[in-house]
């Protein structure tokens, strides 16, 4: 007993010594060689609180690593310009970057971000379309962090059911505006910016059209595209269910209009759900529901696939640690926390079967999953931003009645084709 006890004490003593030694060593390690990772992304408001909490947990798991947050501009254009500046200068930090999904091919082609296949990421755990958008020349360069899809918000106190298709939506909207004195039938983001492209993509899909066909050729001058854009324009100019002011609106103005009870239907991203349910600000709390976007003739209900992805700077000092951070942020626990706090849809389909997500989202998870699985990505090309600008201008010209939809789209198609050819990325890439 005594011996054992002594030896036990002895062992305890050794363990203690070892532990102190290890702690000291770890301490030295931190003092001399602190692995500092920098993370660049959205870090304001509720999103900022979540990311800081998660980074604290990561640092608790790996005490020798310190993660610094680099705050970047909110506006997508500004953030993009900042990233281009950093990466083009081969700066070693930030190590981990939050990208908009449409930037991945551009940064990958320029050699600014790391091919993630070397880490054997289990890409099959994510929605295939969300991963595909991050592929460049076969390799995966970024992993999806959260997913944005376009959804149709409808006022359950004004209409009895969600519309079955676009015609039905227009009928319901007209009837409800006349009957209830609500000023707008439908609101969507129509300002000349990236958001307009996502709305158009949804109408395009609803009519069975696409931006690029299977051969990589621009298909914007097809009849389906013309029909889609004509419908959008007529909703403003002819049927007057969409206010002309929407042509100057981005997501938040759209949300304010719906939140103040001024619209029967709204197209928006998932983030609006939580804000609209907040009775302190919202006049429609408890009086709206969410459905998938309606289809038109010749197409299917379509949501634009958006969202953020995580990538590693090609000149990062420590790629392995950077990947470890990405891997941590993409664990179910972290993704569910984001879903709960900021309403962002996780990129892992498996999570849509868990009860935790059902609590976090204000829409049935299987419905959300269905919408995501049908969602359509924007073209994955390094010249996407320029392609998008050409398209935005053409769309806005047609919607403000400066040009007929067919002429506007034909012009845009020719310009985009020339752009792809010039970059050496034309058909048959």
């Amino acid at each position: 007993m005594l011996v054992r006890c002594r030896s036990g004490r002895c062992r305890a003593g050794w363990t203690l010594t070892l532990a102190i030694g290890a702690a000291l060593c770890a301490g030295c390690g931190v003092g001399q060689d602190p692995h500092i990772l920098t993370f660049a992304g959205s870090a304001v408001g509720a999103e900022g609180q979540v990311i800081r909490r998660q980074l604290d947990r990561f640092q608790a798991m790996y005490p020798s690593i310190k993660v610094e947050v680099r705050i970047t501009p909110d506006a997508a254009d500004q953030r993009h310009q900042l990233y281009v500046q950093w990466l083009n200068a081969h700066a070693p930090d930030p190590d981990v970057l939050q990208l908009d999904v449409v930037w991945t091919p551009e940064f990958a082609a320029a050699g600014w971000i790391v091919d993630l296949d070397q880490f054997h990421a289990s890409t099959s755990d994510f929605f295939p379309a969300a991963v595909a958008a991050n592929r460049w020349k076969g390799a995966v360069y970024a992993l999806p962090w959260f997913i944005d899809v376009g959804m149709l918000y409808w006022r359950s106190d004004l209409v009895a059911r969600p519309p079955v298709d676009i015609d039905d939506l227009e009928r319901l909207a007209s009837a409800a505006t006349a009957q209830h004195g609500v000023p707008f039938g439908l609101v969507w983001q129509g300002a000349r910016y990236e958001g307009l492209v996502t709305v158009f993509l949804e109408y395009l899909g609803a009519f069975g059209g696409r931006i690029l066909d299977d051969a990589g050729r621009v298909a914007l001058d097809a009849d389906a595209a013309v029909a889609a854009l004509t419908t959008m324009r007529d909703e403003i100019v002819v049927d007057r269910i969409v206010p002309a002011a929407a042509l100057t609106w981005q997501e938040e103005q759209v949300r304010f209009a719906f939140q103040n009870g001024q619209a029967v239907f709204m197209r928006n991203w998932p983030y609006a759900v939580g804000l609209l349910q907040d009775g302190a600000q919202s006049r429609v709390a408890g009086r709206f529901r969410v459905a998938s976007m309606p289809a038109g003739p010749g197409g299917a209900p379509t949501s634009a696939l958006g969202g953020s992805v995580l990538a590693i700077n090609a000149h990062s000092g420590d790629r392995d640690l950077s990947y470890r951070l990405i891997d941590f942020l993409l664990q179910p626990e972290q993704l569910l926390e984001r879903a709960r706090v900021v309403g962002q849809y996780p990129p892992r389909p498996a999570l849509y079967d868990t009860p935790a997500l059902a609590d976090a989202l204000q829409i049935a998870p299987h419905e959300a999953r269905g919408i995501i699985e049908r969602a359509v990505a924007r073209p994955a090309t390094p010249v996407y931003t320029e392609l998008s600008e050409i398209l935005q201008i053409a769309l806005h010209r047609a919607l403000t009645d400066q040009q007929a939809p067919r002429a506007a789209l034909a012009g845009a198609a020719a310009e985009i084709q020339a752009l792809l050819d010039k970059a050496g990325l034309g058909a048959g890439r």
Partner: protein
Amino acid sequence: MTVRRLLPVLGIAVMLAGLWFPLYWMVISSFTPEARLFAPTLVPREVVLDHYRALFGGRDFWTPIRNSLIVAGATTALSVGLGALCAYALARLQFRGKPLMLAFVLAISMFPQISIVSPLYLLLREVRLINTYPGLVLPYLTFAMPLTIWLLVGFFRQLPAELEEAAMMDGASRLRTLREIILPLAWPGLATTAILTFLYCWNEFLFALSFTLGPERHTVPVAIALFRGQYQVPWGEILAGAVVATVPVAVIVLAAQRRIVAGLTAGAVKG
């Protein structure tokens, strides 16, 4: 007689009211609660400081103010310093090539900023000065230097030559004359030039937008213009920021309007 006298006064009153109305509207709106921003009343029914609190609490508007002060201050000091020497030589010394130099300075002040944005961007990027204070001060010299030289040449020429000649008779060198006689006499001109240069720098937008990247280096105009972020149009905060950006220039105009007018007219009317 009274009618003839009253009429212009009335006309002025109406004109000034019209001219000042947008400013008035900006100020009262910046104190109006968000919910009532678009339900206007001529006299505010309720005054709140919410937007200002959000501006300095939530957004840290001190940073752009500090950036603007540093950049405008440094540019003003540098260009008035270098410009005074150059202008003195052009105004007072006899040597060939002066008209050409002056024409050159004037031509530079007339060319559009946008035409040198691309090389300046590449240049600043090459020497790692994008998003730094020197990276703004250097581009600002393109408009500040010609402005100061042009204005100061005019002011130096107005100074009586006799004093200078007397000093030189006494054996003082040109440089000493400049330092001890001319500069003390010319300070009103220097002050005017400095005020105008500062105003131009404070208001500059294109270079500041092109050569700064993050909120930590944005100047006041860029910061306000980019309030329209990806999602929101926070009109209350935008207007509060607009008021804050206007206060310094309003103070300067009130305190130094005579000088500013003298500077503007010297810079322009006399050629």
